[in-house]
């Protein structure tokens, strides 16, 4: 990720407004690209993808690194960029979750399901 040095991000406590993003606003532009994918020499999967959706008043970008090292751990690292077009405010949020396979025992049979894994990972 490259970002202009003149306007650097500064620490903030304002979260990305998830409620506003849940509104059924029309999506004017949507794209999802894969940046890289690897099967770790058949030891799991590592994938970096980026998707973006643009609505009339705001937009959200999600760059996600999903990694599963079989029988070792699962790791998800998300970078979200939110833009409010009216105010010109840009919020960048990075979250990382990770858990060892042993501790995911209860959902082991569903470990291919990303949504299930996410709820079991520690932030």
């Amino acid at each position, binding site marked *: 990720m*490259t970002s202009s040095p003149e306007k650097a991000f500064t620490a903030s406590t304002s979260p990305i407004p998830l409620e506003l993003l849940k509104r059924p606003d029309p999506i004017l532009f949507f*794209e999802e*690209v894969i*940046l*890289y994918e690897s099967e770790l020499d058949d030891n799991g999967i590592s994938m970096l993808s*980026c998707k973006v959706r643009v609505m009339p008043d705001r937009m959200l970008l999600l760059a996600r690194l999903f990694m599963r090292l079989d029988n070792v751990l699962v790791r998800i690292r998300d970078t979200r960029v939110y833009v409010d077009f009216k105010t010109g405010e*840009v919020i960048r949020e990075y979250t990382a979750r990770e858990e060892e396979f042993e501790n995911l025992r209860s959902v082991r049979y569903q470990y291919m399901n990303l949504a299930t894994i996410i709820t079991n990972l520690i932030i």
Partner: protein
Amino acid sequence: MPVTVHPPQPATMSTLHATREAFPSTVMPELTTTSHSRHGFTISARKLPISKSNEIEEMEKNLHIPVPEMIFGNNLIAIEYQGAAGEAWKIEFNAFDALDMVDKTDKQMLKVAYSSAWSRSRYVGNLKDDFFSL
């Protein structure tokens, strides 16, 4: 009875439009980059096939680490802002920059599940003594 076979007629080439219909070539990236502008912000995305071997060599040379098996070195999503007063800002997500941030030392490497079992099974004794004692 002689049969005349007409050679297949070449399809008429239509003008190359600057849309998704363009052939996925990295030569003219602007043809395969889609974008949308709104209130001074321009969001662009580029989706091209997997990087070719010469592109991969170039990346590995500059990164100093091997790249993942399937690398889309030309894919990107970027947000750019152009203000009325001339202020500019941009953020871009691409494979090269993401990999450039990876730890290139061997300090925090993960190990595969069977690595400790494999290490234990390796011969640890004194090979020379055992060989001559046979």
